[in-house]
């Protein structure tokens, strides 16, 4: 950049180039940042605004009838027993589905570390649920779980179990929804566990084996402790995923029977789009953001720890 500018035109260009080079890193982020501010931050502020007004379908087009109501929507949300049953439903759904995903996924991931024929082909099949459209997952499980002619009932009848209405029965709907949702998450756990175990140092396993440790001793004292930071990351990702869940449950049960599978997102959807209580829904959504922030903060810390601990 030491060349003498020959004319003012070049001087302008050169100084622009210098300016652009100096602000290189900021200019690169600027478009994405602007777009996300417009698309995420602005609606978030709008949501806050909604939550402190009294907007329903009746007055949404009439600004003169919209009132500032302070935090009373939040007070109403927390005073509503249905809201707490939603929270409980979400918690049960989340904890149970994480348990299934983690249990089965961990077992499969460990099994896949063995060398056996057909391993590669099976791993390709494992990828399908990860990329599968959630709506379709709900759709074909609804087909399989049909109470009158579903294959699941047929297979159970072969071993002598009476047919059930899996998605309509009040004690079976939640377990069914949990298993269907977990169905979509197992592969993710399997692949992450497999990747993490295979990147563990072979020396440690070798040393344990030389010291006379059997398979399960190595698993318990070497593999799993080393896996801990990664497992924590997995649990947090699964928790975020469970808290977000809408599509599969919407298709399977729509939150029924009798609201028994109405998790948090479905509750907000019902509040806003079935009952048109936009302001109440906004207050619920803000509480949900709070819960998400807590989980994400945990995830960020866990990610840092897993990288710092050589989890690569």
């Amino acid at each position: 950049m030491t060349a003498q500018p020959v004319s003012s035109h070049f001087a302008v260009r050169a100084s622009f180039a210098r300016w652009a080079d100096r602000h290189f890193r900021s200019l690169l982020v600027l478009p994405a940042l602007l777009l996300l501010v417009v698309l995420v931050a602005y609606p978030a502020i709008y949501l806050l605004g909604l939550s402190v007004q009294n907007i329903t379908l009746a007055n949404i087009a009439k600004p003169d009838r919209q009132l500032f109501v302070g935090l009373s929507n939040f007070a109403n949300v927390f005073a509503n027993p249905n809201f707490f049953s939603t929270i409980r439903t979400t918690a049960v759904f989340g904890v149970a589905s994480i348990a299934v995903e983690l249990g089965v996924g961990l077992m499969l991931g460990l099994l896949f570390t063995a060398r056996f024929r057909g391993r590669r082909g099976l791993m390709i099949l494992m990828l399908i649920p990860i990329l599968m459209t959630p709506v379709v997952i709900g759709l074909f499980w609804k087909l399989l779980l049909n109470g009158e002619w579903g294959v699941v009932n047929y297979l159970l009848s072969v071993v002598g179990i009476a047919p059930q209405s899996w998605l309509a029965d009040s004690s079976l709907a939640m377990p069914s929804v949990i298993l269907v949702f977990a169905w979509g998450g197992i592969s993710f756990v399997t692949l992450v566990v497999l990747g993490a175990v295979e990147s563990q140092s072979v020396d440690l396993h070798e040393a344990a084996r030389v010291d006379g440790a059997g398979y399960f001793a190595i698993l318990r004292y070497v593999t799993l402790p080393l896996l801990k930071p990664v497992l924590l990351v997995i649990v947090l990702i699964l928790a975020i995923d469970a808290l977000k869940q809408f599509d599969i449950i919407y298709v399977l049960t729509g939150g029924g029977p009798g609201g028994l599978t109405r998790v948090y997102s479905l509750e907000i959807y019902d509040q806003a789009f079935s009952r048109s209580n936009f302001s109440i829904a906004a207050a619920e959504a803000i509480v949900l953001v709070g819960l998400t922030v807590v989980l994400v903060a945990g995830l960020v810390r866990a990610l840092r720890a897993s990288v710092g601990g050589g989890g690569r």
Partner: protein
Amino acid sequence: MIMKAGTRQLVLIYGLIGLVVGWLVLPALWMLLTSIKPPALVATNPPTFLFSPTSANFTAVLGAKEVVGSIRDTVVISIATTVLSVTIGSFAAYSIARFSTGGTPVFFFLILVQAIPSVVLGLPFFVMFRQLGLYDTIPGLVLAYTTVSLPFAIWLLVAFFDDIPRELEEAALVDGCSRWGALFRVVMPLARPGLAVAGILTFMSAWNQFFFALVLAGQNVRTLPQVASNYISTYTLDWGKVAAAGVLLLIPPVIVVLVMQRHIVRGLTFGAVKG
């Protein structure tokens, strides 16, 4: 831990794996089977396993105007979202990968935006889009999808840029290239495979999107997941059509899995294994 398996362990391994993989794979196969069943045999008890396949369900589904229109809309929206997200996202990702631009707050924000349930943004969008004339339009859905796709694309791309050695651009800088010249002439060409993988995964996530279309569109613009979900209530007695719509939705994911398995494992799981 590489396990040296004996015969007994192998039997156990195959047994367990067979069980779980059966659980993971057979359901989707049953849908495929249902989609090519003659309509009269779909809802029978006991289920019909043997039948002469028919294309009747697919012909009916693909003959429906709403399905053809929704396929077109879904493809247009997904491509537009992907191009927007990957283009803008690649610059941001490069800056974050090289200079840790924004530090922890940006890192946190990128994860948070991906973690926030769709309904949280769908609700203000629903009200705002009506006022802005974006309700039930393709640009409206592209903007809504971008809230998910842009952070996702940046997240994927940061890892890819991390893998491109700095020495190459430093050499270009020493040779008199400007920062921008080095970016466009050295880094971006090297990042092309990463950009392609990020593009395909971003396309898939847009293709699978359901919620925004459910609340922000429905008359003029429809997406395939939305139409498929409507089918369940419309054709409660005609599950062959529902299954056919489901199979159509699965074609892109299955192609993607078969063509680029290795890249997907990396792209989708590095977040957990590698910060």
